[in-house]
């Protein structure tokens, strides 16, 4: 070899990854969203269910609450919270066991994909679908049932953080819950009753104050009740706060409980997530 060849670059031992980490996460997210939108069941049950419910409930309970506030103002809060829980908790608690059962997760583990990319994809999907669903819900309620949207920046801010914390807690719990299901089918069987019970005891369908005290206390252990309560502070007049069990909307406690569920959910995710089925060893 002559000295003139020393400038020839030696093949790099580890060639640069063609796709950078941010792009890797984003393309995983795009794939998840595509997959979601192409699945008719997902679109109908996750995105349209809250819209259908608001049509039914707002049509049946077409009366005003105290002070001329429309019932829609109350009911929309439960539906937004339910929608966020459905896309964060239920859809992941159902979808991930299916992917595990079909070997999708195992196939991904066999590639150089960093583990976090899979979760990033799910989180992006949940955020995109959650936002789209909430916007759709607000639009339908405002157009057809005279919903009054929040009027102050402070209310929008509260709307933002309650939704963000709530959907984060639900997403983490959904991922953690997915490890309970042993088969593709049991995901739905396990998650649906949990979600349904929470909806009934958390003031989604029935005004929270009309529930027995013990039921309120049980509901207060779970995030949905606090999501609904935080959202009521956005969509109902401040005077309604006095009717809450705590005598006010307790936004500080809403933030605390939801944040606690985020931490708990994250710990459960990290501790329990399985890429393979039990029979895979």
């Amino acid at each position, binding site marked *: 070899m002559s000295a003139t060849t020393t400038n020839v670059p030696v093949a790099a031992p*580890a*060639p*640069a*990854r*063609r*796709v950078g980490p941010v792009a*890797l996460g984003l*393309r995983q997210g795009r*794939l998840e969203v*595509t*997959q979601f939108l*192409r*699945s008719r069941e997902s679109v109908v049950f996750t995105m349209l269910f809250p819209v259908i419910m608001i049509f039914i409930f707002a049509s049946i309970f077409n009366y005003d609450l105290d002070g001329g506030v429309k019932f829609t103002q109350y009911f929309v809060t439960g539906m937004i919270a339910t929608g966020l829980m459905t896309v964060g908790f239920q859809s992941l608690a159902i979808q991930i066991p299916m992917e595990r059962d*079909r*070997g*999708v997760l*195992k*196939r991904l*583990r*066999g*590639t*150089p*994909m*960093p583990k976090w990319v899979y979760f990033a994809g799910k989180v992006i999907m949940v955020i995109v679908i959650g936002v789209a669903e909430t916007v759709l819900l607000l639009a339908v309620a405002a157009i057809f049932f005279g919903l009054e949207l929040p009027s102050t920046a402070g209310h929008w801010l509260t709307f933002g953080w309650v939704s963000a914390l709530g959907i984060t807690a639900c997403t983490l719990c959904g991922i953690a819950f997915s490890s309970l299901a042993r088969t593709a089918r049991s995901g739905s069987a396990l998650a649906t009753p949990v979600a349904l019970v929470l909806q009934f005891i958390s003031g989604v369908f029935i005004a929270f104050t009309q529930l027995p005290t013990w039921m309120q206390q049980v509901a207060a252990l779970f995030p949905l009740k606090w999501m609904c309560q935080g959202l009521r502070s956005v969509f109902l007049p401040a005077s309604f706060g006095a009717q809450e069990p705590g005598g006010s909307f307790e936004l500080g406690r809403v933030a605390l409980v939801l944040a606690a569920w985020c931490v708990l959910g994250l710990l459960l995710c990290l501790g329990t997530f399985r890429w*393979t089925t039990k029979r*895979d*060893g």
Partner: protein
Amino acid sequence: MENQLAISVRGLRKAYGDNVAVGGLDLEVARGEVFALLGPNGAGKTTTVEILEGFRQRDAGEVSVLGVDPARPSQAWRNRVGIVLQGTGEFDDLTVAEVVHHFAGFYAAPEDPDKVIARVGLTEKARARTHSLSGGQKRRLDVALGIVGQPELLFLDEPTTGFDPEARREFWDLIRDLAAAGTTIVLTTHYLDEAEALADRVGVITGGRLVEVSTPDRLGDRHEALATVSWRTPEGAVERWESATPTALVAELAARYGGEVPGLTVTRPTLEDVYLRMIGQR
């Protein structure tokens, strides 16, 4: 020598409770080699392969795959290893092209995904949703995902299950191409003709141990086995003789019958015969 080995296994053990799946297995696979693992269901094939792939933890033994312990699989190592698992994966409502393009993005130096789709014969199905594929087509998609990263070492766990004969031949050509390009290939299969057609060496696993490793034509001393000569007697019965010198026997028969010997066949044990005898010994 170590550098020439793609896989080196010493005293591998794995038990599930009281059930010993792999009980002291030794194995060496050279770089660039096509190695076929044969063995009945439950013999420990898949457990062994999944330990090598970094999916399962072993109880004991030394394992090195491309110079790395697969018990702690790194991203860099995954980048060099292609895996086609047993059974097919489904990707819901995504198309073949979408899935292959997506997986290509995980690797440092992927092959052109469209070329990979063509190599496995799925070009016409590139825009089809994966759930609409037939069993054999899904399997081809699995193979595409295994090779899209241009791996140095490719694991194929029963890759041609569900293939029709033509697709199997096409798959064999693909494996030969990959092997010719220097890819090390470890294959498990139930099809002995497949092992014979593709493998440089075959290993037979039974009861969690590798009982023999050999080239396909020498397995179980097959090349030294007696030939079986059979023919029909004038009474219509089939006569069957085992002989170390079948040519002489045939010549003698030809003389006896004055030309054509009715129903004459001369066979040596197939790989399947040898294999069945070996696993029957256990």
